[in-house]
């Protein structure tokens, strides 16, 4: 299956491991990733604070470029995913926004007529690749590993992967298909704080501490994530959470695509396993 791949900016920098692991597992699962030519930033949440038409226009340019490929878009970053889905919806529902965005695009010689379907990479794996295919590729089933699936916020909200965002199970099903155990815990769809780690650090640290605490109490060996910012907040700032709360968390935070790579027997380096702050090497021992 061929898809239009929209990595987003983080996957070329702080979330490089996400990109590396996605590219490593794409071949085995039968996905051909055609990177959208000349894509730009989605605007994240920062643009919405300044000017909402700028935010919609940035994303609409990406949708227009994707439309040229005629392929469904796959986005691994939850923030990009939300912007793509929200922009598509607002352009079709609100003519006042559409006419302004059309004018802005025209200034750059771009035109978008709508209709692009965007999926999060997790959805592509579960819905399009299918879990039977995933199971058929297991070389080192993750037997005995307890994983806390952390959906984060964006992909299970109004523009998200399912109609009702309250009790998603897609992630758990994937983890079980890899041979691991998905542990239930209360924080799986509660926000990590996102960019508040920069603007209101104490608030974000408390959210991350709650995620880590609940995952630890559930007996998780690691937390699996679907978003670059979640990975960075819960992993890179784990030490600062410990400093602030007098805790001693040391829970690896990995992308679900890295878990897939491990289970498929891929080289740990090829899936960026050493790019995290809390070492994920303990996961290697069980799989092999």
């Amino acid at each position, binding site marked *: 299956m061929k898809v239009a791949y929209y990595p987003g900016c983080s996957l070329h920098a702080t*979330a490089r491991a996400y990109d590396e692991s996605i590219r490593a597992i794409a071949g085995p699962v039968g996905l051909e990733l055609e990177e959208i030519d000349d894509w730009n930033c989605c605007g994240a*949440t920062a643009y919405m604070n300044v000017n909402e038409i700028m935010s919609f226009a940035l994303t609409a340019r990406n949708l227009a470029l994707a439309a040229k490929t005629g392929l469904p878009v796959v986005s691994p970053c939850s923030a990009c995913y939300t912007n793509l889905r929200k922009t598509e919806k607002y352009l079709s529902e609100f003519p006042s926004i559409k006419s*302004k965005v059309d004018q802005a695009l025209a200034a750059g010689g771009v035109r978008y007529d709508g209709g692009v379907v965007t999926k999060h990479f997790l959805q592509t794996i579960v819905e399009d690749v299918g879990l039977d295919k995933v199971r058929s590729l297991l070389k080192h089933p993750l037997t005995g590993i307890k994983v806390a699936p952390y959906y984060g916020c964006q992909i299970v909200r109004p523009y998200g992967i399912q109609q009702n965002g309250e009790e998603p199970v897609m992630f758990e099903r994937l983890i079980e298909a890899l041979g691991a155990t998905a542990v239930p815990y209360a924080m799986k769809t509660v926000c990590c*704080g996102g960019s508040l780690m920069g603007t209101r650090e104490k608030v974000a640290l408390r959210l991350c501490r709650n995620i880590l605490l609940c995952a630890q109490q559930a007996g998780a060996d690691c937390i699996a994530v679907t978003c670059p910012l979640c990975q960075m907040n819960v992993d890179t700032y784990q030490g600062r959470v410990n400093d602030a709360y007098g805790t001693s968390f040391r829970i690896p935070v990995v992308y679900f695509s890295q878990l897939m790579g491990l289970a498929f027997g891929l080289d740990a380096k090829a899936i960026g396993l050493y790019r995290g702050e809390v070492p994920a090497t303990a996961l290697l021992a069980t799989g092999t």
Partner: protein
Amino acid sequence: VTSAEPTVLYERSLDLDLLSEISHVPGIEKVRDCIQCGTCSGSCPVSWAMEDTPRKVFALIRAGMRERVLDGTAIWTCASCYQCGARCPRKIKITDVMYALKRRAIRENRKHSRAAQALSRSFVRVVSKYGRNHETALMAEFLMRARPFSALRELPVGVKLMAQGRLPLGGQRVRDIDGLRRIIAKAEELGGEE
């Protein structure tokens, strides 16, 4: 909120226009439908850090307490996680309302808005330059704008990320950067509120 603050405002100090100021936001009129049930505040993962919770913010808007809304901490505590709006029984697009209030407050250079302003401005500047977010440049610029005197505290984080190969020095530039800049400029002009 201190005990000295009046809980009753005189009519002349009320400002009932805040809703109409942000009336271009689709669905904003639904704020009038709010039944004050508090599902938003109860669902919000960060309402504990707000002086006025989301439910109160809606009450304050309708009561004409414009200053308190725009100078409050609620809008800057909102992480845009969409949980409130997903559960609102009146289907108010609460995150969109919060965004509109943030834009207002930034334009008026309100209390507590400094860090968010620094982040947004740095982000917009980096994206205008490259077309993509050059995270290394963004972090550096944001810190210098937001808290120049404690920016060095973040150095160890930067060093670690760099050692992990996650903070490239060079940025990637969009090929059609001129076209993109024209789109951004036009959008800025058309989206300039009110």
